[in-house]
């Protein structure tokens, strides 16, 4: 059972969190100018790195989304921070 640091609530067990997205993915829009391939890539293609990953997670109990950097091999959590413009 991993412990994740919510920037607002501190360390909590992983069952309180949901993965949301890989960080840095930009939603392609407006829709009419986006090719099928680009949209499919946005929806389904992830880097899923072996090693350090930068991801958006949500702490379901407080409802806040945040950025977490973690190592997918060692399970080490490197950092977590509020979304830009949000107090941490």
């Amino acid at each position, binding site marked *: 059972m991993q412990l994740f640091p919510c920037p607002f609530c501190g360390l909590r067990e992983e069952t309180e969190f949901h993965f949301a997205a890989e960080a840095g993915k930009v939603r392609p829009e407006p829709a009419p100018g986006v090719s099928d391939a680009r949209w499919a890539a946005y929806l389904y293609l992830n880097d899923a790195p072996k090693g350090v990953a930068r991801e958006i997670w949500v702490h379901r109990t407080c409802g806040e989304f945040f950025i977490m950097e973690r190592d997918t091999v060692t399970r080490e959590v490197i950092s977590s921070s509020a979304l830009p413009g*949000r107090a941490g």
Partner: protein
Amino acid sequence: MSGWRHPTAGHVDRTRPVRFFLDGRPLEGFAGDTLASALLASGERVLGRSFKYRRPRGLWGMGGEEPNALFDVTENGHTTPNVRATSLPLREGMALRSVNTAGGGTALAPSLIDLAQRFLPAGFYYKTFMAGGWMRWEPMIRRMAGLGRLDPGTVPVADAPAVNIRCDVLVIGGGPAGLAAARAKARQGAAVWLVDEAPEIGGSLRWRGGQIEGADWHAFQRDVAETVASAGGRVLPDTSVWGAFDHGLYAAWERRSGHPDRHWRLRARDVVLATGAIERPLWFANNDLPGVMSAEAALHHLSLFGAVAGRRVVVATTNDSAYFAAEALAAAGCRVTIADTRQNGPTVSDGVAHLLGASLQRAHGSRSVGRVTLNGGPDGAGAEFDADTILVSGGWTPSVHLHCQAGGKLDWRTDIDALVPRAGTSPLKAVGAAAGTFGLAASLQEGHRVAGGDGPAPRAEGATWHIAPVRPDPTLTGRQWVDLQNDVTVKDVALAAREGYRSVEHLKRYTTLGMATDQGRTSNFAGLAAMAALTGRTIPETGTTTYRPPFAPVPLGVIGGTRRGERFAPLKRLPLEAAHRSQGALMREYGWWLRPAVYGEDGLDENAAADDEARVARERVGLYDASPLGKIEVLGPGAAELMDFCGYIRMSTLAPGRARYGLMLNETGVVHDDGVVLRLAEDRFILSASSSHVASVRLILEEARQDRFDPSRVVLHDVTDGWVTLTVTGPRAGAVLASAGLPEALCDDAALPHMGVVETRWAHGRLRVTRVSFTGDRSYELSVPARHGRALHAVLDGAVTAEGGRWIGLEAVLRLRAEKGYILIGKDTDGITMPHDLGWTRPREKRSDEFFGRRALFTPEASRPDRRQLVGLSVEGAEALPVGAHVVPTEGARRSLGFVTSSGHGPGVGRPVALAMIEGGRGLMGARVDVFHLGAVVPARIEAPCAFDPAGKRLHA
């Protein structure tokens, strides 16, 4: 000859006999015995049968490594299967059922399966029973295999609670090294949790004894316990740490007598691994005979319980540790011969025969050891002599499981012939025998040093043991067992090697080596060593299998704890549940909520009752509890913008005081939820998500709010649980409101038209009334703060009864909505349904702003003309179509065009109605199709989804 009870040795209470039963035969032990020691002392040799060949098997060990002595134990009417005799204290009246005996008990004649053994090599089942399909044979094989039997009637007396604990230091194992480490840490002020699987801390000191710091070891034991307690820590005996998990989580099972067991979830800053080591067997022909036992285990049973393994004892060893056992047994009155594979060994007392350079070749006997054959020694090759007991010590295997579970690596140490934890590769710090340090003085020192202890380590005497390597000899005749619990021999390992299963992971799966409930404690190393010898590789080259939790078998009931039955996934309860029940509601689960299904007396015909309720609601008026309907408040100047982006149907154009049906998609364009949105003010919406989708809808809104919009301009507030909503529906709904004494303005259709919402006050305070309909009839949803729910219930109950109406359950509501073609997301839709499949085409065609899921509505897949679309189905006759039945063409090749999603008796139309998803269905109105179900075909006709009052006149009537 076999085991016996020493007149004085051990700590059992000889004044308190304890009666128990083995396969129905009465036996006697003493208070303080374990099942194992009581069985050993009462002379029972054959304690069970082996898994595959049904060979007689006896006691081998003293703890979690025990592969043979497993029993289904019945106590006070409760049966626990596959209990290790070594780990359960003896209690009065316990009934033991031996395993793998097919009811014949331990007295069974020599096994026919064993005689056929050469036709049953490793992989036999895999190779043989593929003919005709494994599924055909599996039930028969399962009946033959498989340890103890579950008693389905057994229910735990009480659930094992789970306890979460944080501590500074967790010390796993209370042997000499663990004690020294715990005391050193506690002296520095750390809160130490010292966990041991035995009933008392001390580890090997308990049966080996010893002097520490110039006094009997008990003084040291007491000092450790007191130091730990005074620093805020705790000693936890009878507790097995069974798993190391991510981020320093350790799971431990505490066994308690007279109380439910407990499941500890421990998180510690530092962890000391002091789990000790397990004695290895030796490999010779018939090394599985009852009477062959671990030397250390024999010492353990003698010192603690006065249970002596036999009379004429051969101690076969490769190392110094077994000499202590040999001397103890000789002192107890046994005739002892030491057979040491080494050319040099410690000196022995007078009366103990000592053979050097001697190794066991074969044990003889049918149900128990009778004679042994030795190789080497003074008499040269092939010397035979009588012995009733063989105590073996093939070296020691450090218990590194938890270190490896935590990701640790191992190093090979030639000097002790073992794999030990590589320091720094896991968060656990190994000490003592777990780290390959054998001997009391060395263990104490290491525990103290690794814990960073101040001052000198606890002093003790005792040399470090010398251990010589030994390997299975594949050339020896006869069967040498490697894995006693899963019946794997050296020959099976050789077969695996010949057939190319040389990786240890393949070896394990092919032969099932180490896959039994003892987790290969006594067998993994032997299998590994045999494979290394057969393939000419070293042990590090051969590698080890992956260590996974659990380290010890844990009852599923302990892991599950209180999370079973109703508490497995707790249901949400209505604030008015008691009121519904008092009116005869039959409560049932709908999307995590426990809601009234129908009302009536016990034993009623539920279908007929629901039909009747629906009919009353159509003809006069019905009242139902709609509290689970989601109520997500969306507040702030940015509210409309957020609603527009997250919804398929725009809400910014909705006027305050009005309601609008909406759909929420996910980014793949699939309909996630539907529901009505209320706009109470320019900057205030309430989103009525469907009752089972509230949390996920809120998450979609929340993500957009934080990721895309200015979160300071809009906030979300899920108030679903804070309100009671009762819905009045039917032609006389307006009359009910009037006679209930609610504000008159509510009945004014100009002030509150269909799809209107007002916030007003009534006798008890706030009241929100919404004119939306899930039934097709004039309906009023009345919402009040939950604390006023009983009051609202009371006034509506009286008024509805006065108007000739009644309470209706969810089953009636579902009938009413089905004939109106109102869908339920997840029932009438699935994971590919898009809004235009449901007929909601306009926003897809007309909206030019961005919204959630928009792009996905224009993929080639989304534009296929043969997408399944929502339609209605009508049938001749009174029989409703089965839900899930496939719709097929009436002519040509039979293939599925789609399926029935909802079906039932339509209370308004007076005939069966159905909804279905059918390929290109909206273009097939009026077409005849067949509905195929379980071989039967029923003709049906495609219609519009709405079968009743398609013009919607009743909404205003």
